[in-house]
């Protein structure tokens, strides 16, 4: 049934692919080139500004990954093992933040957890104001990036044949014991891959953060917010800060892909 592609087909496919690759890669390559051409590192904002943004980014994304693992793992497990009514709808809403415009997410968070928000107003009465704080940064990043972890973990759990867990039950491994000794050792690559992916997404989060958490150096200004803030004053400095972020994202992405491949081979 399979028709062998003709030479012209092959040529067309190669040409379009090359063009698509160019569109995807050219901006990053140009950013890199212009970074070196303009000796952008000389125009870097003072190191204290970068360090404080990096510290806030590191602290918030660490918290996000921790929260995603803590809250997302049971959810992913439930989605891969249990059948219940409305499961598809639940999956749909869990993945919605992946495709939702981050600015819309920020607005939704503001209306929910803002000082006048549905939940935020109750918290404010207790003296807890979330916007303009690191808690808001974490919430915004969690909202946008946790779905990446949940999806990856769900795939990981689903790759374990139910027979394996059944066999473990026969041998007397139940609940937590089974999860710890059977499920986790098999699925860990998918979980780590998901953590790295959600970490990278949280690291790059901009729209929801600036809308919900605001932008203040030393308090809520993460690396992407710093890039945006200095872009308005000094493009060269923004380029170099941006390149640092791209490098981090690239490392995270290759780690995540490597782990996902290892999990696939296992399954």
């Amino acid at each position, binding site marked *: 049934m399979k028709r062998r592609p003709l030479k012209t087909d092959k040529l067309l496919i190669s040409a379009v692919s090359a063009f698509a690759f160019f569109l995807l890669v050219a901006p990053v390559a140009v950013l890199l080139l212009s970074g070196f051409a303009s000796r952008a590192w000389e125009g870097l904002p003072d190191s204290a500004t970068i360090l404080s943004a990096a510290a806030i980014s590191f602290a918030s994304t660490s918290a996000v990954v921790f929260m995603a693992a803590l809250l997302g793992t049971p959810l992913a497990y439930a989605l891969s093992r249990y059948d219940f009514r409305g499961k598809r709808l639940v999956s749909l809403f869990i993945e919605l933040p992946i495709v939702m415009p981050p600015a819309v997410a920020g607005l939704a968070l*503001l209306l929910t957890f*803002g*000082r*006048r928000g549905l939940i935020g107003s109750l918290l404010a009465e207790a003296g807890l*104001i979330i*916007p*303009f704080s690191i808690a808001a940064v974490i919430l915004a990043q969690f909202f946008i990036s946790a779905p990446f972890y949940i999806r990856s973990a769900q795939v990981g759990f689903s790759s374990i044949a139910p027979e394996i867990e059944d066999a473990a039950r026969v041998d007397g491994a139940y609940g937590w014991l089974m999860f710890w000794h059977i499920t986790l050792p098999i699925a860990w690559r998918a979980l780590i891959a998901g953590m790295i992916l959600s970490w990278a997404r949280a690291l790059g989060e901009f729209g929801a953060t*600036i809308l919900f958490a*605001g*932008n*203040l*150096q030393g*308090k*809520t200004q993460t690396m992407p917010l710093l890039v*945006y*803030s200095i872009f*308005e*004053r000094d*493009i060269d400095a923004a380029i170099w800060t941006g390149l640092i972020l791209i490098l981090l994202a690239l490392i995270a992405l290759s780690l995540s892909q490597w782990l996902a491949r290892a999990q696939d081979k296992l399954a």
Partner: protein
Amino acid sequence: MRLVAILMASVLLGAASLAGARDQLAGSLSVYAATSLTDAFEALKEAFVERHPEVEILLNFANSATLAAQIQAGAPADLFASANELQMGKAVASGRVDEAEIEIFAHNRLVVIVPKDNPADIQSLRDLAGGGVLLVLAAPGTPIRAYADAMLDSHNSDYGEGFSERVMRNLASEESNVRQVVARVALGEADAGVVYQSDALGDVAEKLIVIAIDERHNQLASYPIAPINDTAAQALARAFIAFLRSREAQSILAANGFCWSRAPEAIQPSEATPAPSLDAEAPDAGPKVECEAATLEDR
């Protein structure tokens, strides 16, 4: 000189074609304008297009620093309206604006805004230094921030050295433009913000309390406008600038909270141009609201 020539040409053309053919203007005009001009320029666009139906106006609003950077980078703008002369100066430095063409067309003043229910109980500017106030300002580099910083520093002579520093300790967020400062306060997320008096009008007015700033410390924001010198829409750009001098345009600006300095030299450029104007109306005949804090309370 070119301006005069074009105005004369348009008058001659108008005379030649007699009545009915008043409108020779057609085409598309890209106006890059400071965020604080949003409402005013939307209304001005409507009024201008009503006079010249063949004209299409595209408005691009952002903070003046961003617009200046975009123009410097070769953005397809025909007109640049900045909220201060510093950012207009950057456009001049890029070579795309001729200094002689710059005209100040309006002024603005600063006010403090707080949410209607005033959660931090701010009665005067002095209260901005109080403990736990969530203050929101525009980001460094924007014109409004430069004016706000100068205004706060100026208050040090009244409230003691270190007053502005204490206010800055309450800073909760730096927004990328002045409208976002307004939005934060109108939403009730922030306790106070410093914005232009023109920003506290319109739909958000009912969600805000406006606190006037002492005349001695308030800043006079000046809005320069100039055509970009390398675009095809030169005649159209100049026609729009001429329109800004008309009674109708000045009424629109006044209705949107802009004002005119009492110091006549401050608006010299617009008065200095003998404008036969496309509008057959005397220039500078508009209702010029003086830039006083009092004009706000009258509203």
